[in-house]
């Protein structure tokens, strides 16, 4: 299928848009996708690796040996197939496998700018906010979501200390 933007090259990705009051899908070639700002991990990996999907999906791989993310259950192959990361934990679980792709997309630079949990804007912290967080912490513990509970606990400590 030809790219629906330039009409010249072969389309490699589809993007959704609303046109004339209806949701539609456009097929775009790699060059137009890049110029139009439609970034996709899978597409980028395929172009970078000359479409050698077999490198990622070896035949006869023992399913039992495939590593799955403990949070969302995604395997690295799932991420490659969909071009989407399964959850925040996947970045940790598949850190080694993702590293070359992240370097390819972003270079060797690291994050600069706002920090989560830091809050760049000074705000007076209402007590109500802390009580909501305590409630969320109880819920997280009840539902055995310990990772979330730990993050909440740390944040509450930090905020209580800040408030003193």
């Amino acid at each position, binding site marked *: 299928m030809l790219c629906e933007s330039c009409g010249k090259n072969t389309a490699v990705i589809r993007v959704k848009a609303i046109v004339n009051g209806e*949701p539609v899908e456009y097929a775009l070639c790699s060059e137009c996708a890049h110029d*139009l700002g439609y970034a996709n991990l899978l597409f980028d990996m395929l172009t970078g690796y000359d479409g050698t999907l077999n490198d990622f999906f070896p035949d006869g791989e023992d399913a039992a040996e495939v590593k799955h993310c403990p949070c969302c259950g995604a395997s690295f192959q799932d991420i490659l197939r969909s071009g989407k990361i399964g*959850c*925040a934990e996947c970045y940790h679980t598949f850190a080694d496998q993702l590293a070359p792709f992240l370097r390819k997309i972003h270079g060797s630079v690291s994050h600069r*700018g706002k920090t989560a949990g830091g809050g760049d804007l000074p705000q007076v912290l209402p007590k109500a906010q802390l009580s909501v967080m305590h409630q969320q912490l109880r819920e997280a513990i009840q539902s055995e979501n310990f990772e*979330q509970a730990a993050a909440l606990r740390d944040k509450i400590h930090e905020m209580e200390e800040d408030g003193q």
Partner: protein
Amino acid sequence: MNKWYQTTADNADVSASTSICFARNLVGIPFPSRMSMADRRSVLQKIQAVLSQDRNFRYGRFTQVDLESISKAQAIALAESELISAEMVTDTQGRGVFVSEDESLSIAVNGEDHLLIQSKSAGMQLEKVFGAADELDTFLDRLLPFAFDAQLGYLTQNPFYLGTGMIASLQLHLPALTELGSTGRIAHNLSRLGLTMRGTFGTEPNPKGAWFRLSNQVTMGLSEREALSNLSSMAGQIISHEREMRETLTGRLSVQDTIFRDFGILKNARLISFEEFLKRASAVRLGITAGLIKGIAVSKLDTMIYKAQPATLIFDSGEALTEEECCKLRARMVREGLN
């Protein structure tokens, strides 16, 4: 209360609006492509609960719209207003959006990421729009555990947005640069500088109505303010170039003739498609900003463009309309607005 797009602002002759989005996700919950329905509902509830804590302030007064309980026309109208993505229209279960009364602040939930915090304003007001988005983000950050890594920044479903997770955009009206055939080359050069410029309505090389969206593409290694400064500096150059070209172009009798003919058609048409309206409104907008057409504010025409979009028109009318009825309603709205 006026909506954000009904207000006037600096640089609106070329930059009709500014929007800034932050992509955010919660720790311990799969990203939207792997979320269960229970996860989706839980995230919606969490955000609703957090916003309701701000009762005395504006976040507590946001309107919650659950996409699964609204009509398809309303969902598409929300996408036309860019409050939700096109992808959210095709799968509405467990998805929603929280919107402020003037629609300048919103949080789309369970789209590409758990939260898409968005702030908008008329004209080119990057500082103001960033400030509002940042303040809402900070408020939510204090109450929700956002997925973040010191090196990778905010963790997003699409790794292209790692880092700040921020996309800032300007809606540019470039009739003169389009007429001169310069926009393709500009877009190509911008993509090398970490910016992207694409048509607002469709992906054609010559976008309808000469409307373009200029956005930052780099989210990693640049702070939010550095990214905004790059965008602002490139936008400034495009805007002054467009203004220079407009001055030359609108001095020509043939261009003035097109502007006034299109103005006449918009003031008299009984049926008009959105595509035809966009094309003629582009010429009229050029005429207004060049001082050829007086007594109509640019913001009024921009509001019309906003309201004339097919699904928005149908949703606002409150009825199911045929295509001809849509064209009739659009023509009447435009006539009443311009006469």
